[in-house]
């Protein structure tokens, strides 16, 4: 019989962690409880964050947003700050799991699970996300690209939780694009995903571009070289094709039961070609 603690405040949380230092922390449980059931993680005491209001919500600080870690995906999809200012993230969340999973799962959980296929991760990387880690001793923050080391591996330390994610708001006129490739249209592990934030001038020339790919390596792959190749020209098929070739060299996907490395590499570039349909939308 293991303990399941339900702290109501951060102070309660720190007490709980002190009393049960071996406990696993979860919010929605859609990753952790599945892993305990299938034996990847042994049964243990649990601390659930779902009742801590101080860990929920989105705070607007002008040029950046602070997304509190235990906010569920459904709550984020209902928040105008997310849907209006961070559509690249909203689109990723909208195709994550299922409505039921979105009612329970949280963005903090998705980041800490650090799956190479984590749906929110590519958007968070190009939003220059910083993760805030809290413990009873205080708070520290670091860029998400430093926080996530590899599949399932982060720099979180014992006694810490991921308390918030800070993201920069992109320029209001930037195009924010996200596409996920899965084996079906819901309840699908991402085989490949691409997040893009593109700024165009009035005549359709690319001013700035940020690109990131998920499920293409142990962590998110950003490929600035491909992004830079797009700058100074409209988003033509030819230009995107050149950039696609660069991306295919930059990604290091694996072959697993879901897809081959070859397929992933091919579509990593192909997803970039989709951007030429955006050119038509934006003009």
């Amino acid at each position, binding site marked *: *019989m*293991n*303990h*399941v*603690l*339900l702290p109501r405040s951060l102070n309660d949380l720190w007490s709980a962690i002190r009393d049960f230092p071996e406990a696993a922390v979860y919010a*929605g*449980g*859609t990753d952790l*409880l*599945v892993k305990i*059931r*299938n034996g990847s993680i042994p*049964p243990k005491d*649990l601390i*659930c964050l*779902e009742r801590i209001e101080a860990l929920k919500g989105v705070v607007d600080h002008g040029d950046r947003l602070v997304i509190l870690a235990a906010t569920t995906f*459904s709550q984020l999809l209902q928040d105008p700050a997310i849907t209006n200012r961070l559509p690249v993230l909203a689109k990723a969340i909208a195709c994550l*799991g*299922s*409505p*039921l*999973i979105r*009612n*329970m799962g949280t963005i903090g959980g998705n980041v800490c699970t650090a799956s190479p296929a984590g749906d929110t991760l590519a958007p968070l990387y190009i939003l220059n996300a910083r993760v805030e880690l809290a413990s009873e001793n205080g708070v520290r923050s670091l860029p998400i690209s430093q926080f996530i080391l590899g599949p399932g591996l982060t720099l979180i330390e014992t006694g810490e939780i991921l308390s918030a994610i800070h993201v920069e708001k992109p320029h209001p006129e930037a195009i924010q694009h996200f596409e996920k490739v899965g084996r079906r*249209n*819901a*309840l699908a592990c991402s085989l490949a995903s691409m997040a893009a934030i593109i700024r165009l001038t009035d005549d359709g020339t690319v001013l700035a571009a940020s690109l990131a790919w998920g499920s293409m390596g142990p962590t998110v792959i950003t490929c600035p070289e491909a992004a830079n190749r797009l700058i100074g020209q409209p988003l033509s098929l030819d230009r995107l094709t050149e950039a696609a070739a660069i991306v295919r060299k930059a990604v290091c996907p694996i072959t697993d039961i879901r897809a081959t490395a070859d397929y992933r590499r091919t579509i990593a570039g192909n997803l970039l070609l989709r951007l030429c349909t955006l050119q038509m939308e934006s003009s």
Partner: protein
Amino acid sequence: MSINCKINGKNTEIRGPADRRVVDVLREDLGLTGTKEGCGAGECGACTILVEGEPRLSCLMMAAQLQDQDITTIEGIGEPEALHPIQEAFVEQGAVQCGFCTPGMVLSAVHLLNCYPEADRSRIRRALSGHLCRCTGYVKIVDAVEAAARAMGKEIKP
């Protein structure tokens, strides 16, 4: 360990291990077998219950998480002699075949029509996308929720 919550409108005290799955508490301890288990891993939706009105997967909830919550299971939606309009629509539209996925589908539909009384087929499909059904091909389930929306809309309007 003792947990106090409300289930289908009734104050309920639950005794037992804190890490017992809610689906087991409901089915085995409380005899509420309308909530089903199809996969145990959150992938099929058969174990769906409403927590404070929101659909959740009871196979991925620990008993401790029931504390102070207002829970609705399929038994709280209607009875064979007094069905909810959504359930009536399921019956009439032929949306029930083997029936194992049905309770979960109904609960998500209840939540959907509460939030979006005029949900169209596309939105209905999306709302039900976490529920696997192996018998119906989903079409008549979507028909049923659409029909229920129409019927309930007529009731609300004066």
